[in-house]
């Protein structure tokens, strides 16, 4: 087995070399970063279930598969704007960056709806010695380093395109910026490396939608790394909607670094992919910041969805709220591992973490592990996890009003998901999710 892995990594190493040899204006530090990352990836390989962090999610299928990188290929020339229309959110139709198999596509993107001062560009452009280079260099690969993070190392080894967003000081940007990552993979097993750096300047306010979808039904791999930096007083709403093809693999890592009195609001929705894993980390770097980290995973027969979160209270007077809910049907599997750290000296921390799972089938399985580690004494912390069927008292209440038990169950399941969906501030995301939930309930609820 080990020889097989070495052989595969050689095939990735050819692609890596090819990327490094590409002519173009990539700075030397970027090339060095890619080399270091590739070295780390080669040394450690893909994770195995022996590693605690990957205990419940076996990526052997990913390690075995021969994915093809899109380095030096044109994979988007035949795609028309009409084809991407179903994946565009109305609120962001003139503020979207479109990526096909991880590669920025200017023709399909539309940015005229963004106010002056906002930077929303291809990361490749930012990596060149342009005017954003210093800012990018300051932050890229800092929040999401690749030590001990094999998939981040893999992504960083192929760092070239992606998105760079910058919201300038004091600016409130009402229009959401949509990063649409589409796969065109059908016969080929393509490899996509979305990479995003978001810098929200002091007292700025912005909404970012990050969505993943597929135009084909291919067995592709998305390996995404998203870094978010919030400067003092910045407010960012961040939506991630993962609706990849049912044969695909989706591995993503989000790292947010919160400045003084900043506010980060993240909602991660998991609907698609055969196997998905999302690591989300919030680092409180200064005092007085707050975050809401919400999530909803809805998995059906044959799907596996894993969320690992770390909320790290390093400094005093920060607030975190985490609500992750899951609905599992058929022979599906979900993992929730949520760590909340309250470091020594982080007095006045206020942290609540909740994971609730609704099991619609006896064959579904969830492994949930909320962890709270507190090293400070003046703190308010609570956490909890539930795994269960629908609440009997709620069912009785609905049936006592004349609702058939099946209808009552569906309504409660819908309501269970709505608790997360209802908080979303972008109406067309809400509508999309309502529809997805209702479709899965295949019930009379369409009448709602």
């Amino acid at each position: 087995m080990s020889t097989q892995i070495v052989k595969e990594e050689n095939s990735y190493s050819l692609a890596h070399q090819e990327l490094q040899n590409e002519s173009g204006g990539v700075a030397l530090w970027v090339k060095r970063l890619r080399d270091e990352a590739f070295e780390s990836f080669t040394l450690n390989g893909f994770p195995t279930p022996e590693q605690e962090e990957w205990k419940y999610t076996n990526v052997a299928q990913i390690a075995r598969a021969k994915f093809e990188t899109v380095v030096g290929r044109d994979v988007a020339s035949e795609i028309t704007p009409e084809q991407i229309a179903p994946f565009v959110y109305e609120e962001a139709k003139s503020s979207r960056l479109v990526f096909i198999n991880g590669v920025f596509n200017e023709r399909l993107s539309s940015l005229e709806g963004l106010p002056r001062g906002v930077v929303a560009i291809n990361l490749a452009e930012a990596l060149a010695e342009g005017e954003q280079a210093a800012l990018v260099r300051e932050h890229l690969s800092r929040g999401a380093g690749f030590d001990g993070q094999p998939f981040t190392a893999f992504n960083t080894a192929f760092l070239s395109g992606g998105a760079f967003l910058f919201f300038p000081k004091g600016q409130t940007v009402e229009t959401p910026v949509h990063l649409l990552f589409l796969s065109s993979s059908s016969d080929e097993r393509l490899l996509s490396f979305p990479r995003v750096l978001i810098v929200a300047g002091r007292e700025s306010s912005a909404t970012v939608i990050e969505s993943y979808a597929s135009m084909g039904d291919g067995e592709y791999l998305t390996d995404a790394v998203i870094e978010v930096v919030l400067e003092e007083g910045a407010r960012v709403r961040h939506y991630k909607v993962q609706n990849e093809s049912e044969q695909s693999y989706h591995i993503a890592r989000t790292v947010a670094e919160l400045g003084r009195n900043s506010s980060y609001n993240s909602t991660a929705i998991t609907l698609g992919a055969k196997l998905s894993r999302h690591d989300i980390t919030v680092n409180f770097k200064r005092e007085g910041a707050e975050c809401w980290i919400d999530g909803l995973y809805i998995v059906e027969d044959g799907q596996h969805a894993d969320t690992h979160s770390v909320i790290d209270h390093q400094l005093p007077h920060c607030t975190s709220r985490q609500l992750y809910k899951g609905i599992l049907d058929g022979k599906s599997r979900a993992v929730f591992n949520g760590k909340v750290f309250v470091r020594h000296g982080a007095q006045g921390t206020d942290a609540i973490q909740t994971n609730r799972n609704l099991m619609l089938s006896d064959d579904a399985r969830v492994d949930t592990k909320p962890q709270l580690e507190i090293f400070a004494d003046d703190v308010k912390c609570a956490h909890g996890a539930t795994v269960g069927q629908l609440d009997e008292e709620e069912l009785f209440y609905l049936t006592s009003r004349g609702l058939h038990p099946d209808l009552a169950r569906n309504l409660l399941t819908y309501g269970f998901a709505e608790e997360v969906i209802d908080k979303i501030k972008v109406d067309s995301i809400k509508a999309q999710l309502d529809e997805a939930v209702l479709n899965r309930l295949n019930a009379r609820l369409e009448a709602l």
Partner: protein
Amino acid sequence: MLEIRDLHASVEGKEILKGISLTINRGEVHAIMGPNGSGKSTLAKVLAGHPQYEVTKGEVLYEGRNLLEMPPDERARAGIFLAFQYPIEVPGVSNSQFLRLAYNEKRKHLNEEELDPLEFKDLLKERAKIVEMDESFMSRSVNEGFSGGEKKRNEILQMAVLEPKLAVLDETDSGLDIDALRIVAGGVNKLRNADNAIVLVTHYQRLLNYIVPDYVHVLAGGRIVREGGKELALELEEKGYDWIKNMGTERSALGAR
């Protein structure tokens, strides 16, 4: 309309009701009073079909049918309504969605045309006036974040929408301030008519100043220990429940019928 004969019921193996017999006819309002733990709420829940309560003996006939064989949703569609003592919060489901579903389930049962959201909105607006409820409550999740009084008003709103033949109000007055009590009682009085029957389960006489019952039944230790007209409630108020407790299981000769 409803005939309860020697009803015994337990929860988690503990017998709470120890032989209740009661007849309720259309057009009547009955008050069921009694100290805490006397079995009042158990009786209400058994009538609605709560799965945790096991009927161990006796029978209940509703319009000639064996009520105990009917699942809760069927009882509701047949016209039985329980206003909960502690209304359940249903996060994520809006009040109007829920009410429309329940209303249409009943319409279907009666072979009547279902109402679409717009038609239902008009009906709901009309009924909401009965309990002086603001329209903003309709788009909010069922009971979520409602105050105690708002939850109770919402129960009566559901009653107004579903128009039950037999409404059992389980401590609907508890936790209400005087204004809320006036609104809730006023709503019930508006819904009271010659064709329906109302059972008020209450600890206090206060509610009965607003909704005047035809009959009062006093429960203690799972049995009816005294029965009478509306004056019994006043007597009870004056003498307190200790008076009843001392009475043991002796049944009063004041039985109304």
